[in-house]
């Protein structure tokens, strides 16, 4: 017990936990932000988000494999990450929104979630058809950036760059929502769909646009993570629940909520891994359950959205 307490005052440990937590939190944020954007605008809890993640990772790893096989310049890997995200995002965004969700708006929310769950299962199967069961590796971008030693711990720059990516994404979304006309329109639709429609906002276009944005963010998260993992069947399955947890903790539809929720979960999980490894997974869902019990609207629910 004393040792444990001393351990907590260990600066190096605290630094390590905070850094690991920030890295994992950034990862969670990138994964969850697309889901929360879609929920905020369309009120759809989208299970297929896991598929976009998986397809983003697979496409990036697949293209990366070809790229590096031909010994093309290293930096190309980064281009591939964004390219894969956009290709997957636009393709699946249009496919799922126009092909599936369009028919479900206004239906019971359970039915919508279940339909996206069904689509998720089907996409998992299709993914297996396309990519097979063997793992794909796409480590070159990570290798290229190299490593750095901070306070005796080794970090790779690639992981640290995820923090930067998370910051860029959150700042861009913030700028888009509050400083551009399109963003204002989007907020109007979030606030009151019927009135916006009556005022001449093309809600159909806003929904499609938002969905593509959310899908692309989902695919980007997968593509950006791909260099740090082995890309295997089933990676999307885990991500769905993690994203659910973050979205619920932050408040469904709240982007600042997703950011804070991600960092909270990231840091708590990092602390658990260092001090009590058995609790790694437990803590994430325990936080989710606690938030639901005491603050079901989430830590940062956008109040205007919930008014109805």
């Amino acid at each position, binding site marked *: 017990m004393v040792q444990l307490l001393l351990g907590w005052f260990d600066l190096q440990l605290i630094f390590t936990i905070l850094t690991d937590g920030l890295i994992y939190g950034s990862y969670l944020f990138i994964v969850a932000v697309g889901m929360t954007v879609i929920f905020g605008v369309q009120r759809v*809890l989208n299970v297929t988000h896991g598929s976009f993640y998986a397809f983003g990772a697979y496409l990036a790893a697949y293209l990366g494999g070809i790229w590096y096989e031909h010994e093309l310049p290293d930096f190309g890997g980064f281009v591939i990450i964004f390219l894969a995200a956009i290709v997957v995002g636009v393709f699946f965004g249009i496919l799922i929104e126009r092909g*599936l969700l369009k*028919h479900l708006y206004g239906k019971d*929310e*359970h*039915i919508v*979630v*279940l*339909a996206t*769950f*069904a*689509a*998720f*299962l*089907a*996409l*998992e*199967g*299709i*993914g*297996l*058809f396309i990519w097979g*069961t063997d793992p794909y590796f796409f480590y070159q971008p990570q290798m290229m950036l190299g490593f750095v030693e901070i306070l005796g711990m080794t970090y790779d720059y690639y992981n640290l760059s995820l923090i930067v990516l998370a910051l860029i994404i959150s700042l861009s979304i913030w700028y888009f929502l509050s400083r551009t006309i399109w963003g204002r329109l989007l907020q109007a639709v979030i606030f009151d769909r019927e009135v916006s429609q009556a005022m001449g906002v093309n809600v159909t276009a806003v929904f499609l646009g938002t969905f593509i944005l959310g899908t692309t963010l989902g695919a980007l998260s997968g593509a950006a993570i791909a260099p740090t993992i082995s890309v295997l*069947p089933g990676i999307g*399955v885990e991500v*769905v*629940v993690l994203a*659910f*947890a973050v979205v*619920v903790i932050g408040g469904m539809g709240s982007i600042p909520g997703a950011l804070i929720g991600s960092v909270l979960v990231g840091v708590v999980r990092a602390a658990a891994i260092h001090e009590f*490894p*058995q*609790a*790694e*997974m*437990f*803590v*994430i*869902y*325990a936080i*989710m*359950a606690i938030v*639901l*019990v005491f603050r*079901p609207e989430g830590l940062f629910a956008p109040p205007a959205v919930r008014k109805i």
Partner: protein
Amino acid sequence: MSADKTIIGVTIAVVLLACANFFIADWIRQIGLLSMAIGSVALGLLVLWRTGLISFGHALFYGFSAYGVALLNYLGVRDAFVLVIVSAAASGLLAWGLGFLVRRYRAIFFALLTMAFSMILYGVLAKTERFGSTDGLNVHPPTFLGYAPVDQAAQITLFLFGLLVIYGLILGVQIYLRSVLGQMTTAVRENEIRVEYLGYSVEHVIHIKYVISGLLAGFGGAIMALAVGQVDPESMAYWTASGEFVFVAILAGTGNVAAPFIGAVAFEVIRHFAWEHGANLWQLIMGGTLLAIIMFVPDGIWSVLQRLVGKKDGVK
């Protein structure tokens, strides 16, 4: 009265299956056992779903009870009756405790809270060495009130045992669903204010449904543990397991207490044959079927059967 029709039909089916049990191939009997387990959980979801609630976390009770069987094994308990009843009761108790929290929630919040609880269990099971971590634990072949069959006799006896349990569950749920308490389904779904002003607590109604539902999932998990002889977190407590239960419930429809079992048989048969062609086909079929059901047959297989038979009197 159609109450008797359902009970008579189920009784006949159970007797026929009990006889057929002695002649069918092992793999068919195994599918039957798995269907009983999955069907019990889906029956539990039916109880909630009639009130407009969907649990995305029923693997919690299923897995809890399945692990209960494995852990009781470690304590030296081998009798199927004790294993199943004690484990399922433990699940029911867990549902009772969590029910105090869960009963305040509706719609997607209900679904997400139940999912969070089930993922907590998964996190504990997958990370605890004593529970075998991700490998899980083995379950010994059970004895039946002192009778200890081996090989094929063991499976035949287990099948009979399963039928007995399922028969009891169906009768119990049917009686419940016809009672004043059980009939508060549409009422609670459509107008909670009116239910309160008629003089009953909506939260109480939901709490009871949640306990019954957890108990049924517990029976399912215990039967599954005995049928497959092992328990593991991935297939018994992960969110995908909960998803499969919801899938079966939707496939079956909520029209009748027997529907979840018919849905479960369909599910297990498709799974059996799809797996022969690989996992990818299975997921594709499952996803495609679920989409088709949601879009075109929202009341599930049972409604199709009803139309085929041409029965006009809906089961109330």
